[in-house]
């Protein structure tokens, strides 16, 4: 069912955005003695749903006369539901609103969200993430320009893409975590030599192709270039040496057998159990897979980020902030709603996320990092990337239909149907067309 996720996200998002265009009813409810706050998000299965319920309960406890109701959805449903229900004044006070044009932009333009600019100052939300990441939750006041202007949402979680590895397999072949790009390549070659499948991932359902390409591209690029591309500024173009180099490197890696044999026919989700079953030495995935990996391998699994070309250099890693919480115009008491959001980024929330092995918003304190564990590796990697302002972007955010374009082109590139130059040209053509 990986199947519909992307698809429905897109479809649901756009369709429902259309629904939002109807009349805006904003009826003021009769002032009740008991205030009920509702929030909707994607924390719909344990441990996330438990955390959300806990946070709701403790907020109600500390605010007299307030009850808090939490409802967890799958992302697709939330995206398809939210604009419609806000439109009908049946929406929640607070909800996770998918970044960018997927949902946030259309909802702002439809007058369905409350700007968080003043609250951001009040609660210090601007200090949680460096600007490059914070910009993802920003829009101009009229909702037309992405990545600048006012803050419209606050993320409680983070995510980053890297490599999970099997410690036993590494030890068995006397291999260690690479610190440079060249070492990483040597590591893969050595594994292939030993008859071990190096990297598990799958491109049948497409989306992971973006991650592996993004991971490599991140070693050749700069923060400035990547921000320009994603926020569509300063005439950035895909006709860039970093894109060409990354494409060539991807092909080279494929030719050298760094990727698990048959990855073209494997779904992204199915690659995780392949790795945890010990059938490959590494797994290219995001931090969100840590739970499944831990379930299968425990602390026999470790995690590292794509290493830089030169020791100590900077790599931009694929990743970012979780889906941000926003205040809808259905909220009768936006101030209270803002307080609720603030409780999601409180130290208390932070501790609960960390305990569940989930990357929270912001830096993780050193005492929570236990060396030699999967979570320890993950937190240390995240802190390092955050400190270096090295959390990059998902390239498919570049235009509304870029996901389809770049995944198709990547499959063609990996399948030997086109060369790196043609690949880059095709991307740029589509990118340029989106400005017309």
């Amino acid at each position, binding site marked *: *069912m*990986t199947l*519909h*996720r992307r698809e*429905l996200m897109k479809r*649901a998002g756009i*369709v429902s955005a*259309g*629904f939002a265009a*109807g009349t805006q009813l904003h009826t003021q409810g009769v002032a009740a003695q008991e205030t009920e706050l509702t929030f909707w998000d*994607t924390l*719909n*299965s344990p441990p996330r749903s438990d955390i959300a319920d806990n946070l709701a309960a403790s907020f109600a406890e500390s605010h007299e006369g307030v009850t808090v109701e939490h409802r967890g959805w*799958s*992302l*697709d*449903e939330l995206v*398809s*539901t939210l604009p*419609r*229900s806000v439109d009908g004044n049946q929406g929640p006070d607070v909800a996770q609103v998918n970044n960018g044009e997927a949902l946030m932009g259309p909802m702002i333009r439809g007058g369905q969200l409350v700007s968080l600019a003043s609250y951001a100052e009040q609660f210090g939300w601007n200090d949680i993430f460096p600007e490059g990441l914070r910009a993802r939750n920003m829009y101009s006041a009229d909702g037309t320009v992405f990545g600048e202007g006012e803050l419209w949402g606050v993320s409680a979680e983070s995510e980053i893409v890297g490599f999970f590895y099997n410690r036993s397999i590494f030890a068995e072949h006397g291999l260690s975590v690479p610190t440079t790009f060249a070492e990483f390549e040597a590591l893969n070659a050595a594994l292939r030599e030993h008859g071990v499948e190096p990297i598990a991932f799958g491109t049948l359902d497409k989306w992971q192709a973006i991650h592996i390409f993004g991971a490599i591209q991140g070693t050749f690029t700069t923060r400035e270039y990547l921000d320009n591309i994603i926020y569509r500024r300063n005439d950035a173009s895909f006709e860039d040496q970093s894109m060409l180099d990354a494409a060539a490197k991807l092909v080279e890696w494929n030719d050298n057998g760094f990727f698990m044999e048959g990855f073209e026919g494997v779904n992204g*989700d*199915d690659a*995780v*159990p*392949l790795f*945890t*079953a010990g*059938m490959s030495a590494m797994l290219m995935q*995001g931090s*969100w*897979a840590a*739970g*499944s990996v831990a*379930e*299968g391998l425990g602390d026999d699994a470790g995690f590292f980020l794509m290493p830089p070309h030169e020791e100590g250099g900077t790599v931009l890693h694929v990743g970012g902030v979780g*889906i941000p919480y926003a205040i809808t115009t259905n909220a009768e008491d936006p101030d209270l709603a803002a307080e609720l959001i603030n409780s999601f980024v409180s130290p208390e929330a932070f501790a609960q996320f960390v305990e569940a092995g989930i990357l929270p918003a912001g830096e993780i304190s050193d005492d929570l990092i236990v060396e030699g564990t999967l979570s320890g590796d993950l937190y240390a990697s995240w802190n390092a990337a955050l400190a270096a302002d090295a959390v990059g972007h998902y390239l498919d955010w570049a235009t509304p239909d870029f996901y389809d374009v770049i995944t198709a082109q990547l499959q063609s590139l990996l399948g030997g149907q086109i060369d790196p130059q043609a690949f880059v040209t095709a991307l740029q053509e589509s990118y340029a067309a989106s400005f017309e």
Partner: protein
Amino acid sequence: MVKRLIAYTLLITGVVVAVLPFAVTFLASLKTGPELAKGVFSLPDDAQWHNYRQAWVQGQFQRFFANSVIVAVGVVIPAVVLSTLTGYALARFRFRGSGLAFTYLLLGLVIPLQAMVVPLYYVLRELGMLDSLIGLILPQIAMSLSFGTLLMRQCFQTIPKDVMEASIVDGANSWQSLWQVMFPLGRPMIGTVGLMFFIWTWNEFMLPLVVNINPKYHTLPVGLMYFQDRWTANIPLIAAGATIIFLPLILMFLLFQRQLIDGLTQGAVKG
């Protein structure tokens, strides 16, 4: 004998290939993720039956199941009755505009739901039918009518004219002759049509997804989406949910398969 052997081999191969994906799904529902990776047909060390309980209770499948039953019944019975009426009208009467009416109703066969789901949403919104089971039922009755009209018309056309005329001579009006004579004779086809409607309605995914916001009104296929996070899917749970979805259909089919064949046999398909 050789011919028999070939025939049996062909049929058995056909059945095995047909059943294979169901077996795979069922097996997957009892495994853990890593066990799935060891081979689709490997047996689980420990059958994870709790996946079913989790789907049924935490995944709210009990509620979705009830909704699916209500929607299926709410679609199948009216759709069968309406198809009988339209099929009867087009088979029994010769009247100006009958060809046009028939063609109009058949248009539903060539227009995919994806092609009209956005305007349909607005129609339902105008009628105040969003977030309700009736909002799922009425459009699916309409979607079923094309096929139903086609088959019921054919069915009634094959009933010899004198049978109907005899009833008219007996003093029955067209309404009485429909229910007293034609309906019983057409019953096998009615069973077939009903079974097809049931299968389609039970498996319909896109319509309930778009129409209903509130999980109170979700049906089973949409409920499957509960087992996926933003990036990862719980495959064994999805497999368990899928098994819960197709098991009633299989039972239904085993019960009514005589009807299906009889109905198809009866429906002389005329070019």
